[in-house]
């Protein structure tokens, strides 16, 4: 952009690298930041600057955390025999919100996607297998997303873990709360029928 002072342009360029932010949004954000009170700008700058320094991967569950092992891994009240495998850190947040789950986690940081060239070697699968050797885990609950990539990942993990004699479970699949039966696809519906429960 012509006629914009260099420091502003630098910020615009930096913001433009973020996902979903085009040149217009970037300049709007840059000028907004320029008009923000000094302390808020300091806060924002500091939050960004310290992010990379203060966040580490928990060496046990591979989740993003301030400490390693993370708070969940070092909580003795959690069930040490049960580990829930998820794709992303945000999935841990979602499951924690339910308040129902009391076991440990393992974050893969993605799912197998053969057409994108993402294989198990790009995920934290080895770290999981290592844990299964070292820790007294009796059940692995696979909570990858219920889509093709998540299913492929789940099937792959099950294939690796079964020979170890450890129980492998999969999050149940069925109809979503607030959903509509007539719009359900046949795979979801047939799984919901198979997994029916007494009431």
């Amino acid at each position, binding site marked *: 952009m012509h006629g914009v002072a260099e420091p502003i342009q630098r910020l615009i360029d930096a913001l433009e690298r973020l996902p*979903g932010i085009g040149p217009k949004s970037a300049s709007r954000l840059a000028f907004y930041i320029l008009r923000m009170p000094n302390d808020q700008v300091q806060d924002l700058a500091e939050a960004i600057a310290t992010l990379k320094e203060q966040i580490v991967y928990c060496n046990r569950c591979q989740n993003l955390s301030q400490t390693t092992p993370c708070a969940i891994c070092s909580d003795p009240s959690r069930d040490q025999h049960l580990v829930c495998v998820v794709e992303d850190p945000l999935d841990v947040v979602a499951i924690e919100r339910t308040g129902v789950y009391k076991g440990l986690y393992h974050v893969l940081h993605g799912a*197998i996607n*053969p*057409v*994108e*060239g993402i*294989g*198990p070697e790009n995920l934290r699968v080895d770290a999981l297998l290592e844990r299964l050797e070292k820790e007294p885990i009796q059940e692995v609950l696979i909570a990858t997303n219920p*889509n*093709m990539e998540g*299913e*492929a990942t789940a*099937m*792959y993990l099950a*294939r690796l873990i079964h020979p170890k004699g450890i129980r492998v479970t999969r999050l149940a699949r069925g109809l*979503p*709360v*607030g*959903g*509509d039966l007539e*719009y*359900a*696809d*046949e*795979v*979801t519906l*047939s799984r919901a029928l198979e997994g029916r429960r007494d009431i």
Partner: protein
Amino acid sequence: MRANSHRERVYRTRAIILKRREQGEADRVITIFTPEFGKRVIIAKGVRKPTSRKAGHLEPFTHATLMLARGKTWDIVTSAQTISSFRALREDLDLTAYAYYFSELLDAFVQEEDPHPELYDLLLDAFHYLEQSPNPALTARWYELSLLKLAGFSPQLFQCVRCGQHLQPETNYFSLEHGGALCPRHGEGEAEAQPLSLNALKVLRYIQSQPYAHIIRLQLTPGTMRQLEKLLGDYLRFLLERRLKSKTFIHLLRR
């Protein structure tokens, strides 16, 4: 652009879901293959929310009827209904790996907006066959040769591609550059040509010319299967000038 304004704003098509990637908060950009328009990239909004009515109908390998509305960059899915979900392909990891490979191979050979109804039927047949295949690797070789034929790259397996002489029952050669077999006289001089055993040549000819029901009954040794896979893999990589990513996953599972 005048012609475009006369096109209907909403249209219906059958489609096979080839691949998809996440976009924004809850959307997916999906590559579909249709009989009428060939390959087309579309967007499905809100399909990553659990209550989406469309999500389950837009998973990879699904054969579905879609309603699409014209959009600026991508057409937008307004509704989706599964015709066949090929469930067996989703519930067996080896078959899943092959289904990914079949999709990626077709995606690599076709351009957007280039209709190819025969290839559409081929992929549907391939998914159907794969679901009950006693030998997925052999189904894959049939699919590769059928796709090459429809795409106009069928390898010449009866005459030497250099001299036109009928191939004799002996070890001949296969040239990636010439797209076919070479007799020993012409093959030995070609640096890039690889030996082609009589057995492999016969099997290739058989797959190229016979109906699938006959082909899938072939009992081949692991050695022959490996030869065929390598030869066709090399040929496809030569034509596409790249390696297909999903192939790596098939190999990984075999280990």
